[in-house]
């Protein structure tokens, strides 16, 4: 037997690997699921040629005027049928011919309806003889980096790192405690720090595969840009994983059953799923709770990854996020070492 093979840290780390690789569900959630999610979102939010908006009008003349605009298709409906079509989302706007003008019926909280209102009015006024006062031209831009898929990939990466780190540590530790394996291990001369270190080491090795596979996929299939340093992006993933590993350890440090720890983990992760800007920008939340939102580890992780990938920022420009991630590593780790229940 080689020296390495007799080392307890090596053995413990290998055990973590084996247990992970022999759990098909875990492999699905960590390696396959994020890719499926990216594919799904990529398809749903793919950039189509600018949409043609569906509108309705109460007279054939009006319909003709509206249809003259390339951005609109129009149908003729009476007011009752038109209102119904509006309510069911078949049309975005109904133009009603009145005795002394045209009234637009639409939902002003729907951005598409507002666009339809602008286009419809332009079409009606043009048909009535209005001329543009200023000549304008358009230069169209469809650039990688500003699409939704570019926005969501760093979000999914952060979410995935959070899930795999928390489940990887939290669940396994509590399962070991519940099955009295932890107790058996501390009854042996195993150095306790090595038990926890083995989790981190195996996590980091897995991280390499997990991140590389996912990012390579999004780069090849969607052409998601990587404008910042890849090494720094790797460091960000590492810090993110360490922070969530520490959080997973903290959540697992007292729980006696896997049911309890599952509940606790969902409790910890749920606010971040909502608040941390995975699918939409975290800046949408009211200013009052922004300090809280920004202090969450997932918000910091995702915003730093977006900065790196989409804006090409370096770590020096994102010290705030780095500091937040490090704090989320150090504090939970220190606390859990103090309160950890081995039996």
């Amino acid at each position, binding site marked *: 037997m080689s020296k390495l093979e*007799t080392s307890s840290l090596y053995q413990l780390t290998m055990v973590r690997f084996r247990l992970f690789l022999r759990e098909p569900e875990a492999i699905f959630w960590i390696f396959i699921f994020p890719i499926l999610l990216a594919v799904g979102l990529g398809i749903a939010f793919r950039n189509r040629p600018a949409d043609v908006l569906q509108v309705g009008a109460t007279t054939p003349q009006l319909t003709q005027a509206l249809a003259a605009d390339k951005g609109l298709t129009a149908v003729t409906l009476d007011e009752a049928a038109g209102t119904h079509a509006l309510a069911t989302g078949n049309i975005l706007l109904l133009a009603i011919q009145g005795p002394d003008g045209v009234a637009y019926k639409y939902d002003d909280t729907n951005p598409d309806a507002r666009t339809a209102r602008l286009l419809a009015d332009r079409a009606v006024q043009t048909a009535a003889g209005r001329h543009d006062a200023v000549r304008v031209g358009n230069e169209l831009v469809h650039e990688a980096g500003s699409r939704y898929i570019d926005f969501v990939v760093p979000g999914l990466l952060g979410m995935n790192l959070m899930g795999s780190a928390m489940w990887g540590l939290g669940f396994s530790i509590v399962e070991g405690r519940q099955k*009295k394996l932890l*107790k058996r291990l*501390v009854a*042996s*001369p195993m150095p306790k720090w090595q038990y926890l270190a083995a989790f981190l080491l195996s996590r980091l090795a897995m991280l390499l595969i997990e991140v590389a596979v996912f990012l390579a996929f999004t780069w090849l299939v969607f052409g998601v840009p990587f404008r910042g340093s890849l090494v720094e992006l790797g460091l960000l993933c590492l810090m993110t994983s360490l922070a969530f590993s520490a959080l997973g350890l903290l959540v697992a440090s007292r729980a006696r059953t896997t049911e309890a720890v599952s509940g606790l983990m969902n409790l910890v992760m749920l606010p971040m799923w909502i608040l941390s800007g995975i699918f939409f920008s975290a800046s949408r939340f009211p200013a009052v709770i922004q300090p809280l939102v920004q202090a969450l580890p997932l918000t910091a992780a995702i915003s730093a990854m977006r900065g790196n990938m989409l804006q090409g920022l370096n770590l020096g420009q994102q010290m705030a996020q780095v500091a937040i991630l490090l704090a989320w590593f150090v504090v939970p780790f220190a606390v859990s070492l103090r309160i950890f229940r081995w039996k």
Partner: protein
Amino acid sequence: MGELKNGAAGEATRAAGNGRSLLLRGVKKAFADVKAVDGLDLEVARGECFGLLGPNGAGKTTTIEICEGLTAPDDGTVEVLGLNWRTGADELRQRIGIQLQETQFPDKLTVEETLRMFRSFFKRGISVDESIATSQLEEKRKGRVGTLSGGQKQRLAMACALVGDPELLFLDEPTTGLDPQARRHLWDLVDELKHAGRTIILTTHYMDEAERLCDRVAIMDHGKVIALGTPKELIALVGGENIVEFAVVESHDSQVSESRPGAPGSHGSLVPKGEGPGAPTSHISQVSESRPGAPTSTVAHAVVDAGPLLAIPGVQSHRVDAGLHQLSVSELHSVVPRIFAALTAQGLHLSEFRTHSATLEDVFVSLTGRNLRDE
């Protein structure tokens, strides 16, 4: 011994603690308001196989976990291999082997992988192959733990306890939950370890297991040792090496019985006759709480005058448990006819009669008035 500086401590304490593997003095441990261990003194010699026998809840597991350094006692001193857990924990962990109750090793590791992991924790010890051979798990070497039978899992636990080549081995209920064949298999394994000269401390609530495996046995009840000795000595406490059990019905022409409701010994109390022959240190202070719904009131059971029975030479004691009379007896062949005669003289008919060799179970019953399995 405890003052020896670390370093050469290993060899030095081995010499200093010579002849003694374990010493407990006045050990106490309470959980909430339950006194799990209540003032325990024990000493286990090197090379001995020592058993803690008692019903569930007697404090056996707490005791063994205190010895293993997994539970800190509230009071008292614990000395293991001449060291104590406060200052010598790291060295002790290297030198003892432990099998806990109900450890579940990860299902998805193989036997070999599990053992390789445990082996890596110890500085010295036997090879993984050797531990697999000793525990007879060769055919399961590459098998996952999840596919092992109960007995094989228990042997794996044993192998994990052995990989560090321990001087002292703790086994907590090693055969609980196993089928008879698997139990015997495990007993053979313990036998081998004994003959290899290892010190073993085990807990069990099977008296046959303690009798079969242990050089000395401490019977525990309610956190205390109520009797201590070799299985032979303990059985001698009962007073005779055989137990006669019988039940009687009143015959119709009876005139003698009725009479003595308060007859000595007719109420479940053990009456040692004279000085129990080989009774060593132990205190047979009787604690017989007679059970609810026990004898006399039940119509079916006739009243037996224990006096004439106890007068028979060779009858050591008499007790009644749920209508079943128990006599501890030596010289079975000469005593039995006299028992028949004495009962006939009282106008009683036997409805049941059997004899068996006294066991540790009988010792426990005679000491506590309860059966081991009652709890």
